């Protein structure tokens, strides 16, 4: 176990190094090919465009670390966005209160996932596939698919569209979330217990880790973060509609896996996720600025993911081959 962990750690390091190099190459390439790509304005736009998916990916990291998955985050973003609009426009709440209530709903929705997964011990994939449809369905039912919330005051839109001290306002929320999740995963016993659960839930249980409570915690956190992302999304677009955040769960999972977190749990890091989010966001923006068709972004994200994963397992495979080469000689010597 101990040596295993050490081995994984070095793989992790290498993976993140590769990803960092890829990110740097992406940047240099698009800066050379694209028009106005490396400008300060565009850097801010990249940040603005990746905040919501970045937040979801951050919350997804501990979930995947425990060996789970949360497919409902995108749908919950949609549900929270329209509930936020409802609280504000129809219930007449002031915006801060509406935001607080929305975050409360996010926590409740995350709690629903959590209780089904942690206490009923249902598989996360199935549970969140269910809530994926449930939350989106609720959002569509509440608005009948057509009701759109708009005309938010400028003071609120500031959060999604303006800069504060030279950086996009929502980036500050994102940075706070990064610090929170990094400390949680890398500097607390919670983080250790997430990994332990990911390696072996039974083992973790025998080691005295309150597995149910820890797992519940990651899904509730994911719910809360989805609600925060919903508020930022609404501020960025200036509208809330039931189709907000469609497909975001897959972008978030892609970013997490690209960042080196094992989909089987136990291995991964928050800074890896951050690099994953950045690599995808830069790719999307770069393609637009190099005047390439937008659908190439999806294609190249796929290529990036496969190459990065292959890249990080290649050294292991080579050493494995070496080991195999040396075994026949040993085998001959034994008889």
């Amino acid at each position, binding site marked *: 176990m101990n040596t295993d962990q050490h081995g994984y750690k070095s793989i992790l390091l*290498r993976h993140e*190094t*590769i990803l960092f*190099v*890829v990110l740097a*190459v*992406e940047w240099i*390439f698009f800066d050379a*090919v694209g*028009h*106005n790509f490396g*400008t300060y*304005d*565009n850097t801010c*736009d990249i940040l*603005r*465009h990746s905040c*919501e998916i970045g937040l979801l990916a951050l919350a997804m990291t501990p979930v995947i670390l425990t060996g789970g998955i949360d497919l409902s985050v995108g749908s919950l973003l949609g549900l929270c966005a329209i509930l936020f609009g409802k609280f504000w426009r129809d219930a007449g709440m002031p915006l801060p209160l509406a935001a607080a209530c929305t975050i409360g709903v996010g926590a409740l929705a995350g709690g629903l996932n959590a209780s089904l997964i942690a206490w009923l011990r249902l598989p996360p994939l199935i549970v969140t596939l269910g809530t994926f449809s449930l939350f989106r369905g609720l959002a569509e039912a509440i608005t009948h698919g057509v009701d*759109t919330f*708009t*005309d938010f005051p400028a003071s609120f*839109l500031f959060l999604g*569209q303006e800069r504060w001290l030279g950086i996009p306002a929502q980036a500050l929320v994102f940075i706070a979330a990064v610090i929170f999740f990094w400390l949680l995963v890398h500097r607390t016993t919670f983080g250790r217990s997430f990994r332990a659960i990911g390696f072996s839930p039974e083992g973790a249980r025998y080691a005295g880790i309150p597995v149910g409570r820890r797992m519940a915690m990651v899904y509730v956190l994911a719910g809360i973060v989805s609600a925060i992302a919903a508020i930022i*999304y609404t501020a*960025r*677009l*200036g*509208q809330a*509609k039931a*189709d*907000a*955040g*469609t*497909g*975001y769960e897959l972008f978030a999972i892609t970013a997490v896996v690209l960042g080196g977190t094992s989909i089987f749990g136990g291995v991964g890091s928050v800074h890896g996720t951050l690099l994953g989010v950045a690599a995808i966001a830069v790719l*999307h*923006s770069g*393609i*637009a*600025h*190099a*005047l*390439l*068709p*937008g*659908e*190439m972004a*999806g294609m*190249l994200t796929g*290529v*990036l993911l496969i*190459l*990065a994963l292959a*890249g990080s397992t*290649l*050294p292991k495979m*080579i050493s494995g081959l070496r080991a195999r080469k040396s075994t026949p000689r040993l085998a001959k010597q034994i008889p």
Partner: protein
Amino acid sequence: MRKTLLLLLAVAVAAISGCNQSSKAPSGGNVTPTPAARQITIAFLPKSKGNAYFVSCAKGAQKADDELGDRLIIDGPTDPDPARHNEIVENWITLGVDVIAASCENKEGISTALRKAEAKGIKVVTYDADALPDARSFFVNQATPQGIGFALMDEAARLCGTNGEFAVITGSLTAENQTEWRKFVEERRAAAYPDMKCVAVEACDDLKDKAQSETTALLSTYPDLKLILSTTSLGVPGAAEAIKQAGKTGTVKNIGLGLPNENKRYVHDGVTQGVILWKTADLGYLTVYAADALAKGALKPGDKTFKAGSLGEFEIQGDNIMLGKPFTFNQDNIDQFDF
């Protein structure tokens, strides 16, 4: 050793992705800016990229661009997230295009991005679906409710010989646009064709099956019925199927709003006499001409007419550039259109 391996790998990754992009770049066609004459860059946003309706709009846009010699960027979302439209527009803002022509899926949402573009000195026109009026200079209006209503009624009267009974299939009884179109159908009937009589208005809830069953019921209830008129695109093929199955092909005429591709089969079989819409390629063509003129300062608020290349003069009502009367697709011309 391990580090060099890593480095090699990274370079390989970069090279592969680099090749990928540079090999694709020429097909984009618009990458190299000419330093000599200042070339206008027009960014053209369809609601969605794969939609045949917008593909044919884009064809017209491309044709106009070839004539004008501008640089045209056409990009639209391929996934359903509404934020993608804004991201595309915001990328165009930092890219520094001269003018944006947008079809707006989410009126309020995209207006925030379009306003930002205008604040940076980028001109904005909308086409097909308008943004909020303060977020653009002009809207290229493909058809007014009056134009649609009158065209439907005129075609109905022409087919019936200006007398007899007809019935209307509508999407729903409450939808605002449908109600408005029906209002103008009735206005035209009362004013120009008093001998024609609308005997029933049935809602098909925008379902082809329901349109078919409603039509079947109408055919047996009103044996003297001469024509079915649908104000929803799903009504036309639904009604056509009912007429065909009732063996009344040709005796009961069928027209309505619709896309050529959905109705080609019935038009060729003689079940449907015509579908009414506008020429989408002309819409794209006019939009690009308007965008170009706006960027060059040749088109200004307050203008009353606008000349767009080979299509000639168009009327401007307020800040709406009018594409003009709707177009009827029938047996003679429907095969020339693919959307």
